[in-house]
């Protein structure tokens, strides 16, 4: 690729992201923003200790996050390890909430391509409608863009009809320039979504990396005409942080991206904070943690 990618200035991007964090989101805007954030949430559990029982609880939560507040919509998806995707598929059948599976030797991606493809195929066969793959950081950091892209292309093929989210694991890339570069590689290779993080690294979807990736999506859409989605995952655990990410989307890509088809938040503890903050806008009092179910 001879095309020159514009650099990213660290100070400038962080300043812009912080400025957008100062938008005042109050009253109806706060309520609508929280509802939107719930509808974009990929409710996630990625632990060695996950069991079918826990995952079924999570699915029930995703379908109906707050039975006492009917205007709260369902989440976008439930995201689990491949071994549990069958449980998710059964639990979510007919609900509109989608079954998502991580794949490709998540989270490190340190495995052969064959194994990664097999991982993906099995997840799709077991009912995954969305696949969250990781790029090979080992290849990316060694400068082997071709291998990074080839892997994505082949995983995309293995996905069939399932939607592909490509995790670039920003915390391991070392610079905003790399974040932008990796985003472009993923989009050029056919990613439906680009995603910040696995949630297993030192940092996640910081305002800075989120903004860099949104800008990359904007430039790619401008050039190719294809709208790629974005998933912010890792570290977005409060309503304030979630609304900040929505502001970044709104003022970078516009309202067309403010839908679960184009923006997702990968989270687990975020959902209950959204519900507590929503209840506060209704009652004027801070909700108790025990007002909402814990899975």
């Amino acid at each position, binding site marked *: 690729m001879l095309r020159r990618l*514009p*650099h*990213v*200035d660290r*100070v*400038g*991007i962080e*300043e*812009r992201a912080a400025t957008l964090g*100062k*938008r*005042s*989101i*109050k*009253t*109806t*805007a*706060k309520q*609508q*923003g929280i*509802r*939107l954030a719930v*509808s974009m949430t990929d409710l996630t559990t990625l632990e060695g200790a996950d069991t079918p029982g826990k995952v079924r609880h999570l699915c029930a939560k995703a379908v109906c996050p707050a039975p006492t507040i009917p205007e709260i*919509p369902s989440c*976008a998806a439930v995201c689990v390890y491949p071994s549990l995707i069958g449980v998710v598929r059964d639990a979510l059948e007919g609900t*509109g909430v*989608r079954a998502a599976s991580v794949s490709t030797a998540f989270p490190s991606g340190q495995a052969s391509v064959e194994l990664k493809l097999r991982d993906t195929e099995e997840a799709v066969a077991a009912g995954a409608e969305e696949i969250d793959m990781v790029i090979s950081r080992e290849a990316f950091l060694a400068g082997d863009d071709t291998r990074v892209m080839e892997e994505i292309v082949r995983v995309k093929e293995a996905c069939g009809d399932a*939607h592909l989210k490509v995790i670039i694991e920003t915390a391991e890339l070392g610079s905003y320039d790399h974040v932008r570069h990796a985003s472009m590689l993923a989009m050029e290779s056919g990613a439906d979504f680009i995603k910040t993080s696995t949630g297993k690294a030192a940092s996640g979807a910081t305002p800075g990396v989120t903004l860099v990736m949104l*800008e990359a999506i904007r430039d790619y859409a*401008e050039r190719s005409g294809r709208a790629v989605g974005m998933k912010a995952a890792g570290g977005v655990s409060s309503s304030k942080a979630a609304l900040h990410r*929505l502001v970044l989307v*709104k*003022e970078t890509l*516009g*309202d067309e991206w*403010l*839908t*679960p*088809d184009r923006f997702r938040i990968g989270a687990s503890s975020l959902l209950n904070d959204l519900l507590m903050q929503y209840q506060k806008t209704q009652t004027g009092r801070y909700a108790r943690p025990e007002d909402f179910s814990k899975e």
Partner: protein
Amino acid sequence: MSTQETRTRIVWDYAPAPESPDHVRLRDSYGLFVNGEFADPKDGTRVPSISPSTEEPVAEVAFAGPEDVRGAIAAARAAQPGWAALSGLERGKYLFRVARLIQERAREMAVVESMDGGKPIRESRDVDVPLAAAHFFHYAGWADKLSYGLAGREAAPLGVAAQIVPWNFPLLMAAWKLAPALACGNTAVLKPAETTPLSALLLAEICQEAELPPGVVQVLPGDGATGAALVRADGIDKVAFTGSTAVGKDIQAALAGTGTSLTLELGGKSANVVFEDAALDQAVEGIVNGIFFNQGHVCCAGSRLLIQESVADVVIGKLWERMGRLRVGDPLDKNTDVGAINSAEQLERIEALVAAGEEEGALRRTVACELPERGWWFAPTIFTEVAPAHRIAVEEIFGPVVSVMTFRTQAEAIEKANNSTYGLAAGIWTDKGSKAFEVASALEAGVVWQNTYNKFDPTAAFGGYKESGFGREGGPAGLRHYVRLS
């Protein structure tokens, strides 16, 4: 993702988020602040100060007449020896107190600044007021160590300083002027601008609260006539003026041969230079901040945008898209990016120059945003196809209007950037350090920002080349113009 699409679309827009003015303690009417007291004018008038966003009066203010000017200077003169006789440590204590009181009343001062001047509360809250406090803190620190800031030389105050500040940063400019003057042992007569006197009057209240000795600071609101009388009056030792180049020249002519010390900070037509190797998205943010900050009412605004031809289309495309996302409207709304034009007179001037740009053949694009019905507004505007000979490439517009020109090489960029009668500020956007240093040292501008724009700090000297004036404000350099060295 068909199942998602069938769901109800949740529409999300920001609700109005106005900063409440309820906590503001404005009086209905303000007198002149002379000798530590607010007093009725002797031969002045009373005029309402109008909010540019509503066209409603905010408060009534006394404008000083010639006798009031003489009285204020006499008070300053009487107080000056006592103030200068205080130890630097004692003067510093007063200035620290003023700084802390500005912080304590920060929210109130920000609201007043936005009501009186039209700037977005986001800016008055995050920039004007904190920086004003920071200037007092900074110079409070210098008060007892003046010789360290003046190359080890002994310094004596000049005496009485007449200080005239503009309407674009009313409180901040008052702080820039008063803090170094007072730190060095001078007393001051400050004239705020005709359209924005209120924050300076709140500052006068703060001087009272800080128990500043009477006569150390006078605040005389007034129009151009008051200012003209002040700089021509007997008994002043120093004039510090920030404002238009035309008035600056008039003041310099009036003071010629009088021995009165003078510093001028005047207009600008600053070049913001974007090279092809810049971080383009951040450069676009810098362009926006350079020209739409404070509605472009900034003497160092990056109003001449020079873009390397190879990236001009990309940058202009991004800039235009970004301009469409600016939120124009109520200055008191916390989500407003661009507020009201300061006065009807200024709006007329912007409109006239924009019309001239169109007549001369430049291509005008103005953001199609909804503007409030009352008040004075001008939507963000960009001119492309601008030639260096066009008036919009030469004259200061002082509004949210950017003129774009292109260049091919570094040498051409420097030549075009310097091709101005002004020389206040410049911006350079490049990822290449060596280029940034080379270009910065070749630019004839008092301030050069690299990969940022409109960044102010009390420790940094600010001032111009050529018709942008002389003298520096901020940092130890700012002390030099308020002392006599021995």
